[in-house]
């Protein structure tokens, strides 16, 4: 059975791009969230194998959403996918429990490689 992924990004373009990449890699995108708060809600609902999480989003940013998901589901696998690659942010995300950090723009293979490494 295909592993389940939740995409959290406020940009429609990124959600479409990530969905195409993940689907082509054999993963099932079970839901798409447009902000961190929706990401937390959809995580509870679907409990996916992996979450891709943007950082800059309205309502609730990705680091706050990551912390909320990990406090409720300590084994949640969250990969940050963001345009900002400052060392401070990478450290903050890793300390909050992110399993990987992908900086946009990315190659499709880089995303699939990170996801395969984490959930097979």
């Amino acid at each position, binding site marked *: 059975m295909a592993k389940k992924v939740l995409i959290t990004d406020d*940009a*429609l*373009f*990124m959600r479409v791009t990530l969905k195409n990449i993940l689907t082509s890699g054999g993963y099932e995108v079970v839901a798409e969230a447009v902000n961190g708060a929706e990401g937390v809600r959809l995580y509870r609902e679907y409990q996916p194998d992996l979450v891709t999480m943007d950082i*800059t989003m309205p309502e609730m940013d990705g680091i706050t959403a990551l912390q909320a998901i990990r406090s409720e589901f300590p084994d949640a696998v969250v990969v940050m996918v963001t*345009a900002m*690659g*400052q060392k401070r942010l990478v450290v903050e995300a890793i300390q909050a429990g992110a399993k990987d950090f992908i900086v*946009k723009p990315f190659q499709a293979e880089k995303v699939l490689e990170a996801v395969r490494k984490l959930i097979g």
Partner: protein
Amino acid sequence: MKVEYISPFVEAALSVIETLLRVAPERGKLSARPQVFTSQQVNVVCGITGDVEGQVIYGMSIIAADKVASTMLGAPVVTFDQLAASAIAELGNMISGNSLTLLAKAGYNCTITPPTIIKGSNVKISTLEIPALVIPMKIPGIGDFEINVSLQQRLRA
């Protein structure tokens, strides 16, 4: 405005455009404007907050925007719809995000606000009276691309 605020945006734009659109842009001559103003038809506005604050606007013609979105989406854009606008906004978001990584290496820690698309010519943004520096670029096969950078050191209370 300090020129050291500009270099990260130039470097990031050259790199992000080349990666996303698979063409190397040519940089034009830097010019100054008394405040943020754009005569371009499609503009992506990104707010910057932190050690330096202000706005950056990425502007282009509607024809160039169609070509950028088509390349990013891998299919021709027939109408400039929500998905095409999102692609253009994401281009601005990626350039800004990558610029902040470079600004952080220079000692300025900042963050960006989600990008906003503004369509229409002669747009003046006057929330902050900060002079703007304009970096024109030519993207082969696509058209002109203009970056308006209007940043200043954070005003402390």
